[in-house]
Each structure stands twice: as C-alpha cells, then as structure tokens.
C-alpha cells in the first residue's frame, strides 16, 4: 500500500483527485489548494471534504443562524453557561446545577438502515452531552414518517422505533417524550431527531479544546473500522485500486454498540470526577477528522497526531479512511502528561481501550503522520471553523400566495349529529392516536428520576433528590403550519413547546432546535428556512428565553419534492420542586371543575381536521400570540405553586375534542362538558394559547379570580365525573370511555403489530 504523503503531493501537483465525488465544488477544491499552497493529500482531501460538508460546516445555514446570536440579549444570556458553537448548550438552573441539552437529526441514515440509523442517532447526541462534562439523564425522540398505512412506513417505523429503544434502553437512559407524526412528504425521507439532556455541577463544565503544549491526545472507546465511511471510500478505490481483490466496503451507515457506549459514559464520568481531563470531544460525524481539527482549532497551539497508533478493527485501512471513519462509541481527550497514568488506570478499570495518539504542540498546525511520514499538515481553523459560507439564493415560492388563498373556509363542515362520531374518528387518526405502541418499547423508568413521560405534555425528570429540583422538556412542530407560513410555523412550534412545559408546572428557560428542511439549493426551501429562523429567533426574544444550540438538516427531499418545513423546537423548563408537577389525567381529586383557559376562534388552516377529513392543506395557520403564551405560563406555574390545579392538558392538534379525550382516558375517569353555540369550532379549532385545566372545587374561585385579575380569559367547560365512564358533551350525547379507548389506542397496533 502506498500512501499519499505531503512530500508526494508536492512532487505531483497535477495529479487528478476525486474531489467532486467527495462532494467538493470546483471553487472549494481551488480554495483548499490555495490554503495549502499545493494540492491536498488524500488524507487532507478526506478531512476537508467531510468537514466542509453541509452536515459539518453549516455552510448554507451559517449566515442565517447568526441571527440567533445577534438577537440574543444580555438579559436572555444571563443563565446561559455555553451556547451555540459548543457541543451543546448549557443553562444554570439553580442549586448549583447546570443542565445541558441538544437535539440532532439522523434522518438519511435512518431511511437507509432504520434500526442502526436511529440507534446511532441516539448514541451520537448522548456523546455530545457527555462531552460537556455532564451525566446524560434522559432522551426524547421526535420522529416523522410517511402515511401510517404506506407499505414503506411498515418497513421504516418498526425499525426506527426498535433502534431508538434498543440503544437508549441499553444505555440506561429513560425516554421521556418526543413526537410521532405522519405525513406523505416524509414518505421517502423520514425524520429521526434525537434529543438528550444531561446534568452536572456548574463547576464541572468541560469545553472542547486542546490547550497546553506537551499535553497528550488520547483516543478511547471502540476501535476504528470501515463503517460509516461514506463518500470517502472513493479515495480508496481511486487511488489504491487493486482490481485483483477490491475490498468490500461496509455500509455507510454506522453500526452502534450501546454496551460499549454505556461503559464509555461511566468511564468518562469517572475521569471527569478525578479532574484529569483538560479537554474532551466526542467522535461523531466526520470521526477523527472532526475531533482532531476541532480540538486543535479551539485550542491555543497546534497538534501532532500519529495516525498509525489508532487501534483498528479492519486491516489495511488508509489514513484517509481512518480519519473519516464514523465508527461509534469513541471519544478524544486532552490530558496533562502527569495525569496520563491515572487516565489509563480508569480506562483499564472499565475495560475501555485507550491510546495516546498524539500531543499538543507549539505553533498552529495540525500535523498527522503515518509511520513517520507526514500525510496531513493544515491550519486547523481552515478545516473546522473557516469553511465555505454560502449566501444561497432565496425566493418566496411562486405558489405560496395561492396556498394561503386556498382557505379551509369552504370545506364542508360536519352536521351536528355527526360531531360525536367525528370526535372518535379524529382520536383514532394516526397523528392523534395514542403512541403507546411506540413508547412502550422505550424504558421510561431507569435511573428513577422520571416524574412525567409520554403521554404527558412534557417529560420531567428530577435532578436533585435532596431539593427535588427538576427540569421539564417538550419538543414540538407542526410542519403543515410551517408550510403555510414558515415564520409563524416556527413560532407556533415554539409556542406549543413553551406551553407544554408550563402546562406541567415548570418555567421555560431555554430553547434548542432541530431544523429539518429540503434542499438549500432550492431558493424556495431557503426562503422557508430563513423565515423559520427569523420567526423562531424573534419569538425567543419576545418570550425572553435564549436559543442555546441546535442542528440543521438539509436535503430532506424525495426527487424535487421537499418535506414539509419542519423546524422542531425543544423548550427546557425548570421546576424548583417536582412534587408539585401538574399531571395530564383528570380525576386525581374528588370534585373537579374543568376550565378552558384562553380564547377559541374558528381557525382551521393546517388543522388536523382539514387534514384527516378533507386531505386539505391551505390558508393560514392559527394566529400566534406569544404575550398570551407567557401570561398563560405564569398563571399555570402560579396555580401549580399554590396547589390550585389537579390536572392540565395543552390544546393543540385536534383542538379541545382531543384534549378532552386524552385527559379522560389518561385519568381513567369520565367528564360532562357543556360548550357554547358553535360546537364544531369549540371542539376542533386549533386556536393557540389554550389549556384545559382541572381545578378542585375548593380552589375554583381562588383560581378564576387570579385569571381574571391577570387578564387571562377563562371559561367553565365542564366537570369531572368520577362515577361516569363516559365523555358526555351536552346537547350531543355521550361517548363511552371504553369505545374511545379502543379508537385511540387501537390504531397503531392495528397498523404495526
């Protein structure tokens, strides 16, 4: 095997290189030559091509994402210990605790290989959280699929769900929530987003950088293999074509081993506790290429890596392959020489392979050698932080006006006598149906900190067993709303996640996102993206909570058809005492009144009703009122603090009807409901800023007085009836809970069992 060294590159300046196959454009390749003053070696080409990919460099989104930091005020930043640009955002939640959380997409691998794609998606985000110095505590998974009854959904969904569960369960992380959404646009491009939340003491925060000349660079965890090499394999076939016996490449989707990751987590936490880590970086997308260049770029010196020391699990791997392998369950640490023995001892205790692969050097070059020959010599910042930046063309789609003009106003409405049946039909429709078939494959109990999980409005975990301080998390997005108006759609996602968090009694404090869009080369998609970023950032300013990090996933499309713009928003809330959390199910106390907080208007653009009954998408989404959301949140938290609320459930997709069905079925108790004149609008409108609450009769006056005093509209809509086993809607009749349960819980098992 001959290896393309720097010396070789200098003496063969005109050698053809497969940069196009690696995804680099002509001008990008020219820039690399310009930076290096020569042609890149194979290893350099591999490193630049993966690091300058859309996934790693954010080259199409960077100019827009800047808007998040530009709009974040000092006041919003007050509780933020780390933000955009770090592995994950970190927030101070009080009592000396710092919380780190982030979401990431693993969409394309999950379509190709559902189980491993989803599993390694979980594994990757967990390592991001670990790399901040935190113990990972819980995961959530917002998932989106093609139509529930489509044959390919039957292939993709069970595999993805089993992958999320298989990896997360084995890691010992409770899965506390997420989403399962079906829409035709996701048929050839499912979305697998994974969120992880972790906690640490404020003083234990670790940031990824390699400082201190002479410090050692240690690679630890799994061996490096040929999995997840993707496009870089063309380098091998181009350069080392051995027609007699071409090596069979492993799939470009990585293969995960959660057991190795569990051990790696415990090993890292012990290393952190011993305070023998100067800097740490996880190996995710772009593997060692990413970890070494990012560590070196963020540090104050250079770095020398002896690539031949990397433990391999395949023979004959080239330097380019080793650098770009995405083998899972690996971490890279920077350690002071005097701590090396202690570091190795901890790794040995956990049977984790650890290898000193290099050191921090003087100067500002990242140099990688392969058996004493230099195969890579680059300024690391040009790889990791100074990649190409594109101002892609943006154009509002030509048919956007027509889409918005096609309002649902003309759609035939159900007759009065059809309404009860419609409640049941809607509850059984795939997007509104119970997701139990999915969530019962996830361990929600492990570690003993889970206070709320699916189907609660937000997941909640206890962080401190002494003080009972905890956090709540919700992720949301309605892609149909975002299609109709991406600016409003992103704000609606934010509003819903914010509302979900406050509905459980927690105070929202920070935001993360996972922005899933079509091709950035399509000006219409870039317009959606730009609008969504602006909407989300402006919304955060209005609510006074910062975006602490996020993820962008482009190229989610099948042929020329993009997915619905899907800016998934995650909101983190803090609750000083988890024992006062507000549950979702009614009936916990004898004698409860049902109150509807907020106002209902006839808003059906992008609604679940228009989708299920008419297959219609047009008009404008419901109006956003973030000031109202804020007020609503304050009232809910105050109600929880003073013990005035026995249950609460957010109104969103499917409107009041769906909220009533869920709150009865979860609480296993009936209710009698009396509504106002326009029963159809009352039941199915998706107006925002609304929450259904159950109030013990003894607290009713005190609570409604508070709402009135603070200017929050409220209305009595019914009573909980512990004697009844039906949901009764006055003037319409009664739906037995058993019948509703069969409708709500029967859909997914019928499709996927």
């Amino acid at each position: 095997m001959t290896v393309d060294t720097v010396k070789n590159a200098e003496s063969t300046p005109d050698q053809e290189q497969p940069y196009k196959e690696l995804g680099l454009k002509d001008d990008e390749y020219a820039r690399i030559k310009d930076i290096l003053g020569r042609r890149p070696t194979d290893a350099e080409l591999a490193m630049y091509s993966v690091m300058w990919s859309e996934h790693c460099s954010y080259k199409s989104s960077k100019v827009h994402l800047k808007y998040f930091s530009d709009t974040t005020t000092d006041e919003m930043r007050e509780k933020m210990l780390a933000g955009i640009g770090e592995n994950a955002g970190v927030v101070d939640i009080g009592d000396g605790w710092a919380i780190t959380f982030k979401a990431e997409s693993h969409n394309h691998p999950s379509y190709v290989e559902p189980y491993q794609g989803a599993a390694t998606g979980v594994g990757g985000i967990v390592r991001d959280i670990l790399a901040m110095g935190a113990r990972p505590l819980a995961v959530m998974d917002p998932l989106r699929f093609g139509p529930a009854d489509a044959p390919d959904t039957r292939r993709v969904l069970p595999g993805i769900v089993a992958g999320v569960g298989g990896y997360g369960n084995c890691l010992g992380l409770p899965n506390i929530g997420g989403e399962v959404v079906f829409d035709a646009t996701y048929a050839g491009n499912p979305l697998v987003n994974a969120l992880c939340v972790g906690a640490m003491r404020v003083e234990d925060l670790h940031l990824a950088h390699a400082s201190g000349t002479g410090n050692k660079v240690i690679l630890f965890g799994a061996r490096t293999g040929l999995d997840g090499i993707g496009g870089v394999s063309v380098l091998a076939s181009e350069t080392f074509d051995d027609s007699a016996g071409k090596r069979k490449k492993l799939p470009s989707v990585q293969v995960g081993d959660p057991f190795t990751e569990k051990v790696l987590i415990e090993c890292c936490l012990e290393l952190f506790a011993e305070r023998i880590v100067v800097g740490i970086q996880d190996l995710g997308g772009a593997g060692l290429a990413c970890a070494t260049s990012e560590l070196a770029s963020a540090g104050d010196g250079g770095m020398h890596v002896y690539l031949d020391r990397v433990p391999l699990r395949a023979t004959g791997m080239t330097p380019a392959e080793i650098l770009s392998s995405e083998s899972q369950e690996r971490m890279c640490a920077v350690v002071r020489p005097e701590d090396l023995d202690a570091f190795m001892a901890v790794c040995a205790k956990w049977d984790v392979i650890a290898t000193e692969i290099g050191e921090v050097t003087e100067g500002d070059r990242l140099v990688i050698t392969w058996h004493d020959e230099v195969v890579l010599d680059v300024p690391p910042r040009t790889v990791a932080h100074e990649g190409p930046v594109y101002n892609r063309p943006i154009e509002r789609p030509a048919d956007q006006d027509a889409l918005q003009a096609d309002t649902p106003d003309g759609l035939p409405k159900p007759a009065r006598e059809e309404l009860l049946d419609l409640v049941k039909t809607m509850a059984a429709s795939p997007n509104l149906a119970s997701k139990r078939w999915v969530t019962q494959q996830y361990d929600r109990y492990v570690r003993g900190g889970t206070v709320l999980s699916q189907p609660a409005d937000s997941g909640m975990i206890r962080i401190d067993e002494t003080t009972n301080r905890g956090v709540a998390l919700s992720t949301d997005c309605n892609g149909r709303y975002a299609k109709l108006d991406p600016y409003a759609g992103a704000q609606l996602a934010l509003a819903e996640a914010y509302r979900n968090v406050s509905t459980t009694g927690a105070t929202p404090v920070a935001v993360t996102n996972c922005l899933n869009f079509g091709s950035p080369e399509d000006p219409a998609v870039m317009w959606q993206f730009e609008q969504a970023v602006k909407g989300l950032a402006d919304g955060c300013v209005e609510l006074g909570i910062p975006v602490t990090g996020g993820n962008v996933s482009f190229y989610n499309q099948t042929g020329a058809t993009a997915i619905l713009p899907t800016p998934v928003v995650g909101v983190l809330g803090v609750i000083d005492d988890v024992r006062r959390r507000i549950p979702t199910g009614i009936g916990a106390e004898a004698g409860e009144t049902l109150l509807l907080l907020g106002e209902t208007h006839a808003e059906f653009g992008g609604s679940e009703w228009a989708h299920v009954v008419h297959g219609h998408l047009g008009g404008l989404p419901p109006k956003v009122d973030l000031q109202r959301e804020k007020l609503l949140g304050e009232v809910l938290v105050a109600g929880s603090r003073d013990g005035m609320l026995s249950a609460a459930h957010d109104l969103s997709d499917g409107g009041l009807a769906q909220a009533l069905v869920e709150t009865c079925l979860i609480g296993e108790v009936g209710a009698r409901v009396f509504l106002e004149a326009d029963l159809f609008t009352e039941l199915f409108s998706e107006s925002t800023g609304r929450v259904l609450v159950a109030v013990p009769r003894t607290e009713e006056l005190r609570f409604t007085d508070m709402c009135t005093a603070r200017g929050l509209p409220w209305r009595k809509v019914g009573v909980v009836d512990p004697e009844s086993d039906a949901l009764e809607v006055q003037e319409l009749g009664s739906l037995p809970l058993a019948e509703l349960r069969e409708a709500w819980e029967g859909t997914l098992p019928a499709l996927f069992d």
Partner: protein
Amino acid sequence: MRVGVITFPGTLDDVDAARAVGYAGGEAVKLWHADHDLKDVDAVIVPGGFSYGDYLRCGAIARFAPVMQEVVDAAKKGMPVLGICNGFQILCEAHLLPGALIRNHKLHFVCRDQWLKVENNATAWTSRYDNGAEILVPLKSGEGGYQADQSTLDELEGEGRVVFRYVGENPNGSRNDIAGITSANGRVVGLMPHPEHAIDALTGPTDDGLGMFLSLVDSVVKA
C-alpha cells in the same frame, strides 16, 4: 443492615436498587463485578440492565464474574439474594434458580406498569405482602419470557415456589404467567418486573415495590 448491590459493565438499575434499599432503612453497599469480595453484606441484590451488553445470552457472561462466585457460595449458606430483570437472568444462569428467560413472545421490548399477584409471602423478600395481594410495578424487558421444562414447573408449583404471577394479559409469554420464583429455602428470589422502580408514586406507578425491601430488612433483623 448492609445490602450489596452489584455493578457489572452494562448494569443500569444499580442506582435504583441502592435507592430502594435506602428507602427501606438499609445501607446499600456497592459491589464491583471484578472483586472477590462481598464486603460483609447481609444480603445481595443483582440489579437490572444489560450486563456485558447481553452478549452471547442475557446473563451468560455475568455469571462467571468473580463477585458471582462469592454470591453463589453465600447463597448456599442462606444469604438472601434478589435478582431483578437481568439479575433474575443472571441467577438462572448461575443455577441459583431454575429455568431460563427467553425473548418476549411478541418480540418487542415491553415497558409498562404491570399488575402482579403475590403467590408466596414466606420468602426473605416478600413477608410484608399478603398472599393473594395484587401490586402494580413497572415491567421493562425484551427477554422476560420465563421457560422451564414441565417437571421443573411442576416442582415449582408443587412447592409453592412461584412468588409472583402476572395478572391479566401475559406480557411476554412466560409459562404459567410466572413473573418471579424463589429457591427451595425461600432465600433467593428472582423476578422480571422492577420493584425498585415502584418505591415512590412520584417516580413510579405506585410504592408497592417497597414492600420487598422492607421484607428483607425484617428478615435480616429477625435472623
């Protein structure tokens, strides 16, 4: 009283088992898989998780861990031992309990709140319950189907060594709806559901599981 909680690589519910011991008034003592040392404990819990990644077969590698040799010896002398989920699988592999656990009949991992009927309150771990009582605790496992040959089942049933039985729909295809069993002397108990996750209604479905840890404290105090 000191209760050892073993950690193997891949053990997950050790923190929960230790917490449950504390709730019941005992002192949890960490035991490491690689040590030949039970640190003078009065009882041992083999907690749930995926020891050694479930490689080969659930529990098949863990049974050879140095600490398990000590557990087997101590159990033979009458020390109370509780195996939960993967711990139950390990106790079966170590032949402290008969039978084996196989893949759930519907193949999926199942996490749900499960009603159990207490069938034997004469063990070291169940004296706080009434026979026939029903308790609600989490079940979370992919390989929880209890299997044994007919003569073993007959023996278990005949000697009253079935400790817990699933109520309602059988969640994993276990023979005779068996959720947990005990050794002939009633000192070793293994079960698939997780009593340590039902010690506080804040984080579990109920606090029904606490009875097992309180029973242990009683039994050791009496002994």
